[in-house]
């Protein structure tokens, strides 16, 4: 009932289809900066409490409660404090943050200003992935517009709150989506993860208390202030409320991005919104949350798309990038392709990740190429165990997702590669 009532109501993408949706005039005509005005009439602590009430959880992938991060950073006496918006959307399959920034940049900016006010940050940076070059100008224009109207800068709307936002363009490194690597990168270093603790909320960028929030997380904030934490908490599952922008790709009739309440089933997304599998073929597998998430199969179609349900099914919701594969797809090839990505993106700091991903790739390539040997599957599992839990950051763990997922559900297909000395589905992937 909760979900059904709200199925068509969009929160984040309710303005992107308007003409000139990026401009501040259109934004102001559609409740823009109302959330900020409300926030500035409250104390920072009250703002944090309101967001806590909403139970907004981080949309980058980990699902950590946003208000809790703010509370930690606010409690640290060290100043100045920094807000970093993670716009390094790089998890393969994900194209959600781009929709917000391209279509409604002020939604993000307003969320950042409110977040900054809530925990006492003076400086905000948007760490934007290099592959979105046009967005630099779009965001900088929106920042300038907000400044002209007094929403950014010194003494915002007559208060004593000062806040600036800068766009920092990344330079093509997936690892910089990990929060400590992102911090290193802004500081002008190689994007290599730091060990935690200390956590960024205490020792972040330039050694100061820092909150790193994802674009989609921050973009929810103005709506929460405007309509109340209680309203937000009532959408979707109790433990993980709100909507989610699902990036739907692969072998479906209608790929694209869909804003849906948390907790809709995979079946609904793939078959109702996505129009089902292309060309009347059968579903073979789907990856529920970007490249790092182990694949699931048709037996999981009724799993709900929220962090806890997907975790209980043995995978992760991550960035809610749903990649769908039909019956013609070779799952060894899928694992090989995604592993090649992780080899390329491993920052090289931790040996298990740097060396281990490379060995995984060699094995997968030889199995797919028909030179696999008896014992290779055990060896794959062993290398996974040697990476798991032994790296500074989650990249190493993420690299195991494709291998472990495909081995779990498609071991027989791997064995067939060994038996036939080649791929039984060679014509499949990429030729549909």
């Amino acid at each position, binding site marked *: 009932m909760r979900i059904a009532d709200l199925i068509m109501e969009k929160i984040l993408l309710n303005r992107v289809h308007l003409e000139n949706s990026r401009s501040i005039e259109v934004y102001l005509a559609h409740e823009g900066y109302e959330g900020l005005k409300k926030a500035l009439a409250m104390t920072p602590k009250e703002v944090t409490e309101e967001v806590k009430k909403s139970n907004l959880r981080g949309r980058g992938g980990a699902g950590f409660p946003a208000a809790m991060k703010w509370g930690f950073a606010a409690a640290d006496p060290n100043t100045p404090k920094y807000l970093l918006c993670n716009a390094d959307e790089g998890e*393969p399959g994900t194209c959600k943050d781009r929709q917000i920034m391209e279509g409604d940049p002020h939604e993000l900016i307003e969320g950042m200003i409110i977040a900054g006010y809530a925990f006492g940050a003076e400086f905000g940076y948007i760490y934007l992935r290099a592959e979105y070059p046009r967005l630099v100008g779009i965001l900088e224009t929106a920042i300038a517009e907000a400044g002209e109207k007094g929403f950014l800068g010194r003494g915002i709307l007559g208060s004593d709150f000062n806040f600036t936002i800068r766009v920092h363009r990344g*330079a093509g490194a997936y690892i910089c989506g990990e929060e400590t690597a992102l911090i290193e990168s802004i500081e*002008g270093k190689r994007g290599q993860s730091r060990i935690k603790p200390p956590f960024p909320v205490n020792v972040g960028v330039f050694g100061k208390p820092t909150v790193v929030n994802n674009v989609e997380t921050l973009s929810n904030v103005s709506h929460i202030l405007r309509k109340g934490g209680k309203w937000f908490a009532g959408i979707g599952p109790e433990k993980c409320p709100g909507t989610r922008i699902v990036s739907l790709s692969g072998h479906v009739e209608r790929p694209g991005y869909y804003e849906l309440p948390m907790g809709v089933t995979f079946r609904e997304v793939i078959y109702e919104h996505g129009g089902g599998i292309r060309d009347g073929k059968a579903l073979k597998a789907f990856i529920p949350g970007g490249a790092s998430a182990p694949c699931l199969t048709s037996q999981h179609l009724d799993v709900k798309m929220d962090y806890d349900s997907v975790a209980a099914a043995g995978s992760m919701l991550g960035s809610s990038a749903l990649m769908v594969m039909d019956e013609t797809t070779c799952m060894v090839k899928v694992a090989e392709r995604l592993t090649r*990505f992780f080899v390329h993106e491993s920052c090289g700091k931790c040996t298990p990740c740097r060396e281990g991903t490379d060995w995984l790739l060699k094995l997968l390539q030889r199995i797919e190429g028909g030179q696999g040997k008896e014992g290779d599957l055990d060896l794959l599992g062993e290398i996974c165990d040697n990476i798991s839990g032994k790296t500074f950051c989650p990249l190493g763990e993420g690299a195991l997702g494709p291998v472990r997922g495909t081995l779990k559900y498609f071991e027989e297909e791997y064995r067939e590669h060994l038996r036939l000395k080649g791929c039984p589905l060679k014509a499949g992937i990429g*030729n549909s």
Partner: protein
Amino acid sequence: MQGTMTAKFSEEMLKRIEEILKRYATKRAAVLPVLYLAQKEFGCINDTALAAVSRALKISRADVYGLATFYSMFHEEPLGRNVIFLCDNLACTLLGAESLRDHLEKKLDIRMGETTADGRFTLKNAECLGACGQAPVMLVNDDFYEGLTEARIDEVLEKYK
């Protein structure tokens, strides 16, 4: 190496660097934006560019080189007038990116990573361009082209001289 001893940015670029430095708490934090400027001014991150960045930000040349080689947007060799990034990550591969790569390589008569003899195009592969819902995709300079087919690629390339 002789040329690198005096390598530096033009006056205009130095002014832009001054502006960039105001955005950060440390000088070093400006290194990525300054590397982008260097790539623009010197055509690629060669010895001259490394020396100019090193001098402008007081970071050793080896350190700058370590950064330039870590991030995939910086290139040690000059690129063509137009740069094509063809995505071949999973979502694009599921929808035919591999045959599009073959088509591009054949049409331009180069392999991935190479530049055409006339300097018109450089072809590179990309690890997910964030347009998976419209796969397969490529980025040409600053613009996305989505839902690619061979015919669409042929049409798009005509626009770039």
